[in-house]
């Protein structure tokens, strides 16, 4: 490992948040290209599956994290609960904010069809979403945080799959329509 790679490793070890290539370059007083090279070297060292620590690209930067191989032991040592899993309501609110940000709570409720206060409050408390100004009608707007990207292992929001991927296929949609209509006809004949 050359000196720059060593410096970059140390910076990632120290920093409590993912560090961008630009920040690494500025701190090390080298060009971004050199940092990218040093990161590639580090990545070889930290190839997943060989070490207890892995190099990850999350939330617009790079970070070191433990390999899941150590999760059970880590839980015993740290006696700290992991982020609790999301309830269905929380997951839906988070998905809506992630894709439609900035978005207000009334809009979230409109899409979900139910009031979503408690789920939104929990997401705020856990800092996966945060306020982002107000709409022109005065409603608080929400967006996701860098912590969200880190917890979900996203290098950036553009890594979220296209929302259309989750739509029912045209066949399924047509199916749904037809199923409803058929039921209607059966009823009309009865």
């Amino acid at each position, binding site marked *: 490992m050359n000196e720059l790679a060593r410096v970059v490793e140390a910076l990632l*070890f*120290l920093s*409590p948040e993912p560090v961008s290539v630009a920040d690494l370059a500025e701190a090390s007083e080298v060009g971004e290209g050199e940092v990218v090279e040093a990161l590639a070297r580090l990545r070889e060292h930290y190839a997943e599956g060989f070490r207890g620590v*892995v190099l*990850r690209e999350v939330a617009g930067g790079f*970070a*070191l*994290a*433990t*390999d*899941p*191989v*150590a*999760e059970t032991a*880590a839980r015993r040592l*740290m006696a700290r609960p*992991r*982020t609790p*899993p*999301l309830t*269905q*309501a929380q*997951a*839906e609110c*988070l*998905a*809506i904010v*992630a*894709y439609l940000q900035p978005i207000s709570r009334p809009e979230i409720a409109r*899409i*979900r*069809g*139910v*009031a979503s*206060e*408690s789920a939104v409050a929990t997401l705020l408390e856990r800092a996966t979403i945060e306020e982002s100004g107000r709409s022109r009608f005065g409603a608080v707007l929400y967006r996701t945080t860098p912590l969200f990207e*880190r*917890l*979900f*292992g*996203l290098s950036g929001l553009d890594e979220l*799959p296209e*929302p*259309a991927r*989750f*739509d*029912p296929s045209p066949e399924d*949609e047509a199916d749904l*329509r037809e*199923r*409803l*209509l058929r*039921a*209607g006809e*059966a*009823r*009309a004949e009865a």
Partner: protein
Amino acid sequence: MPLPALELDLEVFQGPFDLLLALVLREEVDLLELDLAEVVIAYLDHLEQTGRLDLESTTEFLVLIAALLELKSRLMLPREEDDEALELTAPEAADELLARMLEYARYRAAAGHLRGRLEAESGFRYRSAPLPAHLRRASLAEARAVYDPERLTRALGDLLRTPPALETPHMARPAVSLERRLAHMRALLAGRGRVSFDDCVADADRMTEAVTLFALLELYKAGEAAWEQPEAFGPIEIRPTERTPA
């Protein structure tokens, strides 16, 4: 319980719920004629009979019924000549209902994707050790004013607010409880005899107003109170009946 299994026996319709939806979509049943409260009650009865709560289908039901309610309320609104936004024809309403079902389906699936991602990430832990003391001091010289002090004052204001409070299981967590609004109205009626609805909701937000209206209906149903509204949009006068508990 799959939703289609819900059998309805309503004034204008008899049959399974998905058929009702189909008929509304095809405009064979007039949404204006349909008593949605009856649908809700039938659903609650059904839940009680089956004795178990399937969150998935309950959510689906809530989404559908909320959509129907909103569409119906828009159909019922008096049409203003110059306000085209309010004019929603039945086919438009039907299209919107279907579009809304599809939109919700999209984010429900996206939610599943996110949960999977979080699960897959659960083995990775990041270091959160504090910096060594000699590195901890951010340099004052490099600091510029980037935050608005008003953000703090606003947060303080939020903290001073006492919540209207209460907890209900899972999904809908109304911020206002029917019980409390009932107690509030009973206290007013016991104290003053006649009250106006406006008195009951002085300075209240819309949610509280809505729940208070439910509370009024409850009191009426229980025979505890009666009311009068001599003219449309005029004040609503509420008075206790003989059966009001002391």
